């Protein structure tokens, strides 16, 4: 058995890793192409199907009601993409992004978000090289379904007491939940040799926490600010999106 005492090189390496870890990076939580075995790719996609069907029906209903709604829904989708690709202000000069899923869920409803989510993820893969084709199912589940549904549930549960707090917590918890789901997805795909899935999950949660927790807080703050602005300046438009009834139904 070899025993290495820490040396300078090792410290430098660890310093590098830690710096990378506390530098929140765009799409850090998109599972990259190649990370999941094919069986998992298929399985996660299958898990998404019922939600996607639900979302499709919700959007289809909205378009059947009035064909002109399609350009509005497309703008909503483009907005989620743009929001997720804008560099948000940061103290350290690092480059971080919102996910936009919490806001999307509150504005458009979690069902519609599944379809908008998968479309946005496809464009993120094509245009920004975030995520990928084989991981599309897994990413859709974590970012387009799990996050938005939790965010929406939190928002619905709290919106009657204090709207701002409800919006903040919805976006914050939605983000955290996305990150937890992604970590679990990775842990299932790559269980630790000793300790298996549980150990691996703890490791993935641990390594991404320094980037994702602060990011979730910022996402919460920004979501509140954007939400208030939208509510103040564009009440009519928000209503036409079905916002008043709490998302597209």
């Amino acid at each position, binding site marked *: *058995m*070899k*025993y*290495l*005492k*820490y040396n300078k090189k*090792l410290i430098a390496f660890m310093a590098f*890793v830690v710096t*990378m870890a506390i*530098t929140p*990076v765009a799409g*850090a939580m*998109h599972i*990259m*192409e*190649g*990370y*999941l075995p*094919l069986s998992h790719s298929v399985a996660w996609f299958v898990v998404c199907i019922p939600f996607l069907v639900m979302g*499709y029906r919700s959007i*289809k209903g909205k378009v059947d009601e009035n064909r002109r709604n*399609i*350009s*509005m*829904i*497309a*703008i909503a989708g*483009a*907005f989620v993409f*743009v*929001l997720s690709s*804008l*560099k948000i*202000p940061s103290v350290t000069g690092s*480059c971080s992004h919102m996910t936009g899923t919490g806001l999307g869920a509150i504005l458009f409803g979690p069902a519609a978000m599944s379809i908008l989510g998968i*479309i*946005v993820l496809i*464009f993120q*893969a*094509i*245009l*920004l*090289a*975030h995520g*990928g*084709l084989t991981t599309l199912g897994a990413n859709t589940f974590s970012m387009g379904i799990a996050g938005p549904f939790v965010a929406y549930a939190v928002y619905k549960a709290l919106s009657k007491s204090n709207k701002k707090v409800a919006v903040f917590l919805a976006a914050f918890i939605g983000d955290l939940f996305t990150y937890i789901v992604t970590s679990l997805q990775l842990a299932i795909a*790559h269980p630790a040799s*000793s300790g298996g899935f549980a150990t*691996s999950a703890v*490791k*993935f949660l641990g*390594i991404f926490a320094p980037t994702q927790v602060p990011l979730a807080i*910022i996402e919460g703050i*920004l979501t509140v*600010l954007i939400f208030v*602005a*939208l509510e103040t*300046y*564009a009440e009519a*438009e928000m209503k036409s999106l079905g916002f008043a009834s709490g998302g597209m139904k």
Partner: protein
Amino acid sequence: MKNNKIDRHKDDINKEACVHEPAQHRAEHSHRLFTHHHSHGEGSSIDYQAYHSKIRGWNPTFKFLFTCIALILCIGLDNPYVSVTTIVAMGFVSIVLGGVSFHDYLSTMMLPITFILLGTLMIGIDFSLTPKGEYNFHFGFFYIITSKSRLLHMGAIILKVFGAISTMITLTLSTPATEIVGVLRKLKVPKLIIELMNMIYRYIFVMMDTYRQMKESAESRLGFVDYKTSLHTFAGIASNIFVVTLKRSGDYYNALESRCYEGELLFLEEEKPIKAVQAGFAVLYVVVVLALWWAT
């Protein structure tokens, strides 16, 4: 005399305009559309690269299906030799055939590097209070332990991931997004989704343009002077681009209807036949990869 003057003036205007005329420098300017907001460098100009690829003329369905097969082989066979072959072959297609510069290609490959480093590191190492691993690194009260086989496994995953990424970006660096959407249409993705995708793609750029203008105007008014102000400004701009575009959604629809739109976006799609050489390359690739897998 007066007449001459007027004519000369007109000529001047024309001359001046001619200098600005070629779209080239405009394009160069705006190809950084995403790079503006995205400090990851060139990778964000994937869209721009795709339109200027030398292999844009290849049949998009062929490219898409080949990408899928190559991805399945690379991930499914899970073999370091296959991964390396994939990286080399895809690099060849993108750089030599597609004309992407080596630097641009590499920076696109490196976009997800943080995720790869962090994610893979967690696969390769364990934490322990006792030095029970093959290799142990002492860190205060705990040890980071790993073993040769774990490190090899980690290396294999990194190769596989890069193989898969190179396959994916070879498609996206040579095929504009709408051509990929066109392939999805052929693969019978529901019409409504295809409509949404086409519109979303277009509106992304309209919104990005609005964003850039608003950001510049906010910057000129010290909107990013400190962190708190920045957050407020960012949220203001973000909500604004949405409202501004949403208020115009009716106008966008009017413009479509004025050209006889009836619920399906119809565009002329160029016929791009598959050439024997391309098909040959694809078959050769699959054979080589399978042979490598069988031999190792």
